[in-house]
């Protein structure tokens, strides 16, 4: 019997969804919306979970460093008084050489199994092709070829009670009709003056603080979050003001421990049956050193600082309020 049975050609869209989703958070927070965020196909990635993790991990780590930057500056917190300020930090973490490639393995069905240095999501944009047996070839997808991952935010600083200020970050946006359109970010932290407890006068002010953030991007077919993540930082700050009470320059520094984790959950139909894929990217933990300076002229100020976590981060921002 001669018969040709047609089976569907299953086209998979590799990481278009993940790549756009991972790019969406910093892009939206930089008051920009990435193009190409239209209707996305829900198909199985050419990468297994292990390769997918290697591909996405650097972007998660870079986003985590950005999120944990631009929070603390001045360590001078009077014991009492009213403070309300709106801050606009802009963070930019440099993509390192180690972030651009990962050791990827060819997937099931390709012979012989082999590994290659393939682009990560922030790495070179050209696909890497390796040769197999019998003229077969395997392609590892390219990346966004980024030099840095920028991010901006809006945060509110409220104080002061017993030498304590509260910091809030909040963002909620629905920027389109596709499954990546929804994004939300919430952060809360406290900064507390240590100097108030020290009897002897030190040449600089000291404080300690923590900040916790959580974010969600998009919605998958089952109605749950496509991407969600959280960041946490805790550390100490030191600074000293030079100038008049409402017109001064204040160098500052800080040392903190930062963590960040990200999860991606999407539905795949490559096997013919709906399959939930949960990509748990590795939690990153870093020691974060910050040095910078801020200036204030009455109710407007600005600052710039450099942070080092093993990666370099530059932060600049404006302050409106007291």
């Amino acid at each position, binding site marked *: 019997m001669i018969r040709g049975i047609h089976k569907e*050609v299953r086209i998979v869209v590799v990481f278009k969804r993940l790549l756009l989703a991972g790019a969406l958070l910093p892009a939206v927070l930089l008051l920009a919306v990435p193009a190409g965020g239209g209707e996305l196909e829900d198909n199985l990635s050419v990468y297994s979970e292990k390769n997918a993790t290697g591909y996405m991990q650097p972007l998660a780590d870079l986003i985590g460093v950005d999120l944990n930057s631009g929070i603390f500056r001045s360590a001078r917190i009077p014991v009492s008084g009213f403070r309300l300020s709106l801050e606009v930090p802009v963070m930019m973490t440099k993509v390192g050489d180690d972030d651009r490639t990962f050791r990827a393995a060819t997937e099931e069905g390709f012979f012989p199994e082999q590994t290659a240095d393939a682009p990560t999501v922030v790495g070179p944009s050209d696909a890497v092709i390796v040769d197999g047996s019998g*003229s077969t070839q395997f392609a590892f997808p390219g990346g966004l070829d980024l*030099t840095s991952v920028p991010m901006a935010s809006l945060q509110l600083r409220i104080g002061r009670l017993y030498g304590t200020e509260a910091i809030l970050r909040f963002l909620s946006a629905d920027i389109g009709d596709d499954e990546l359109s929804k994004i939300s970010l919430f952060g809360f932290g406290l900064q507390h003056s240590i100097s108030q407890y020290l009897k002897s006068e030190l040449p600089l002010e000291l404080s300690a603080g923590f900040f916790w953030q959580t974010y969600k991007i998009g919605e998958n077919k089952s109605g749950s979050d496509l991407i969600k993540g959280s960041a946490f930082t805790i550390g100490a700050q030191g600074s000293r003001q030079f100038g008049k009470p409402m017109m001064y320059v204040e160098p500052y520094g800080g040392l903190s421990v930062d963590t960040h984790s990200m999860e991606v959950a999407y539905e795949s139909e490559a096997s013919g049956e709906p399959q939930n894929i949960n990509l748990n990217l590795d939690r990153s933990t870093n020691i974060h050193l910050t040095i910078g300076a801020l200036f204030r002229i009455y109710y407007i100020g600005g600052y710039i600082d450099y942070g080092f976590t093993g990666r370099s981060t530059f932060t600049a921002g404006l302050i409106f309020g007291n």
Partner: protein
Amino acid sequence: MKALPKVLGLVALFCVVITAGGCLLEEKVVEMVFSGETCAGFEEDHATGDFSSESILAYGQEILDILNDNGFDRDDIAQAFVMGGSYEVTDFEHSHDWTVSGAVFVERVGGIADPDTLLKYTSQPLSEALDNQIWAELHGDGVDLLNTALEDFLGGALPILRFTVENGTTTPEPTSSDRIVFDWETCIKLHLIYVEEFEFPDP
């Protein structure tokens, strides 16, 4: 009042920063990789262990239809090549198992060349391949033919392929009263490279 120009200068700087947020967008061109699979099915019903069957596949048209259904054109594909191949028994029910050995060949319909070997299977129990995709190492001649067909497809053609199963031995040997009956398919997995453009802030 002396501070006013400084304040205005800072406000202006803020506006520049906000405006520049849009100018920081850079167009990124990324080579994305699609994985696609096309299969040819066979229905076997034989009284001998040495049998042959064919399957015709409108290879190019099927790939084109699926690309179009997913919003892509043929022109969107920069490269396409064969990544791997497999076979799988899709329907088998019998009082006992069969073990088969043979090969799958592929040729262009309308071509003049002899069929090329695509893959071989050796001592394969049907029960183990039932609903179980068995990946096979492909032969270069067959892959070259498929890759040439893909190149022709990207160039505008709609190649049609003929897959032929040549089964050499079956254990136990089938008879007229104990016929070997099963359905199976051979699938070719493709990688297609597509260029995607994104706008992303990259100062």
